[in-house]
């Protein structure tokens, strides 16, 4: 029951702040709304017993990504010009509504192969999943290369001519 209440609260706030990201006139406000949305997401993760992810969400998303965006907006004055819709806003709305409908149909009409009861999980099972036998750790190598490539790329872009 308490999970349901928490879900509805977080879900409502998440949708509101997501709409805020899209519709706020000021880009700076949009970024703040994004941070709010990401925090709500962390809350939802906790309702789903994913505490570690909630923490990662806050550290990585809020602490890194959102802050980078905020910094970029503040340091580059041009980036904060007003958040206006383009001319295609109504067709896009229709398109996205249809797309959302398709997603909802897919989600609700699928017979998900449900298991009898949710197994208990905590951060240690995630650790086993990541670093145990047959864990995901080899993929971390690719992730590391990805970060390296990103850094090199950003340097290449911003170094200029």
């Amino acid at each position, binding site marked *: 029951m308490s999970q349901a209440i928490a879900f509805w609260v977080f879900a409502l706030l998440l949708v509101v702040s997501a709409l805020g990201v899209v519709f706020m006139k000021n880009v700076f406000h949009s970024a703040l709304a994004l941070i709010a949305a990401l925090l709500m997401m962390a809350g939802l993760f906790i309702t789903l017993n994913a505490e570690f992810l909630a923490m990662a969400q806050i550290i990585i998303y809020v602490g890194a990504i959102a802050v980078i965006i905020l910094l970029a907006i503040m340091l580059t004055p041009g980036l904060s010009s007003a958040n206006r819709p383009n001319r295609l806003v109504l*067709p896009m709305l229709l398109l996205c509504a249809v797309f959302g409908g398709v997603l909802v149909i897919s989600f609700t009409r699928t017979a998900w192969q449900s298991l009898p009861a949710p197994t208990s999980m905590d951060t240690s099972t995630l650790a086993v999943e990541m670093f145990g036998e047959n864990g995901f750790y080899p993929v971390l190598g690719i992730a590391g290369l990805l970060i390296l490539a990103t850094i090199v790329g950003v340097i290449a872009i911003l170094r200029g001519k």
Partner: protein
Amino acid sequence: MSGEVVYLVFALPILSFIIILAFLRPLFKGRPKVSSYLGIALTGISFVLSLLLLLGVYSGKDLAASPLLWLNLGNVDIKFGAIIDGLVAIMLVVVTFISLLVQIYSVGYMRGDPAYHRYFALVSLFTGSMVGLVMASNLFWLFAFWELVGLCSYLLIGFWFDRPAAANAAKKAFIVTRVGDFGLLGAVILLFTQTGTLDIGSLHILATSGALAGSVLSWATIGILMGAMGKSAQFPLHVWLPDAMEGPTPVSALIHAATMVAAGVFLIARMYPLFEYSPNLKIVAIVGGFTAIFAATMALVMNDIKKVLAYSTISQLGYMFLGLGMGGVSVGIFHLFNHAFFKALLFLGAGSVGHATNTFDMRQMGGLGKKMPWTFACFVIASLSLAGIYPLSGFWSKDEIISSASEEPVLFYMALVTVFFTAFYMFRVVFMTFSGSYRGEKEHLHESHKEMVIPMVILAVLSVFSGFFNLNGGFAHLLGETDVETMGIFEVLSHPAAIISLLVALLGIFLAYAVYKKQWLSAAGLTRVFYPFYTLFSKKYWIDTFYEDILVRRFLVNGVFEFFSLFDRYVIDGLVNGAAKAATGVFVFFNYFDHYVVDGLVNGIGGAAKSVGKSLRHLETGQLQLYGAFIVLGIVVIVMTIFIVEVLV
């Protein structure tokens, strides 16, 4: 040694062609000899390899070359493979050997020609394509190389394309042989549609097992024969060959001895099982016998030494057809084998004489025997061999043909008369050219360069001895014939047919001696007596005239070409224009559609406040979000369609 060596025999001349054209010609402009050395070296290696193959086959080794897969379409494999048997080995040796000698000879003969590189490149390609034709295990490839050989001969006959005669001769050779090629192509298509295979070995099995018989086999062999008649210049498709003398003389040697014209004879030998089981073997013999005597008559009256040799080749090819038709593969191919050496020698000799005197007209020659002793000696040996004088090589193969023809009296007598004519015209050439006194204008005649003489001497030796190959049946054995009648070197003289043909040949030589050496009979007198025949022969039976004036000019040019140009003008152009218009129309429609319908739709939905026209002006493509929308739209349409089709229905 494995059988795959045969691919090397084929690849080396082709490689030489590519290297000369791609690298030597642009890079060694000033040093043309590099090309000839490369060509000679690679052809030489090819020759040695084919000799090894021949020895391998002769010693009974089972040589096979696994095919290289070229193309795989569904269930059909098109393979590039090689057959290695006695026939192929012999042909490979002949082709590479003659080509090697011709190239050595050409080093001297073509000296100073501005297109030296091109010449050697083409000769290499010619050799390579002929090798490919010979070894092909599949009719598809055989036909491809058959056409390539035709193309090369076109390029070489027209080598000096700035001379109109050469260009015309090349065109004529190309077109006339093409008539035969249609027959061959028809046969190939017929065989493929009826049997589903073009593999020569499988076709042989189908023919000998009787699975392939009746009208299919009959029509297929007719088609093959047509192809062979075109390439081997058999009546009535012989007209291109005398004109082909316009090419460089060494090329004539190559064409007449080993490559182009031999292809026809080879083709019949290759497809022999099909002929054996069809009613058409006799036709081969008749075509051959008739062509032999028919061409010999024209050779009697020609004044151009190369023209005489050309008609002589046609005549000898007729012999080979006769031999194939009456005797079998080994009889025909044995004559081809011997003929290759002495005919190449005769052409090289003629080239040597022509090189010295700057003409090929025998009326401008005479008395050259003293000035050019080596050429003279070689030429006489070759002439004796061609005339069929014991014990030179021509005697042996010609004897086999004549004795196998003795079953059909008409063909037998035609062959004997041809022997007489052959001896007469060859010694007419010998006496007119080498004896008496010089009638030409050019001074300081001298023997040719040693590059030219050495190949001639080698060929002369072979012209004497190559006939002994079959003394104990070795040659026939090589071609897979088991019950061979062996004839000793002396026993053969007890054979009546041999004695008769030898006497007839000597009679011919004597007559030539009487007329052109001793002038006991005057040539002019003979001409007067046989005036109608003389005219008929020297006008070449008006066949060329008939082809050129009536068939080509009246009928083709005025009729068919006119039709084609009309067809071209109205139908093809109409189609092309129509298609272009249609394509433009589609695009214009597409553009309109895009401009008005797509944009209009997008705007019509979104542009509540703005008029459609105004939006159109502002709504530009190049918008990345529109691109993104299309990604999403695509997915939505696909997924929804599938939902509707698969899930909800």
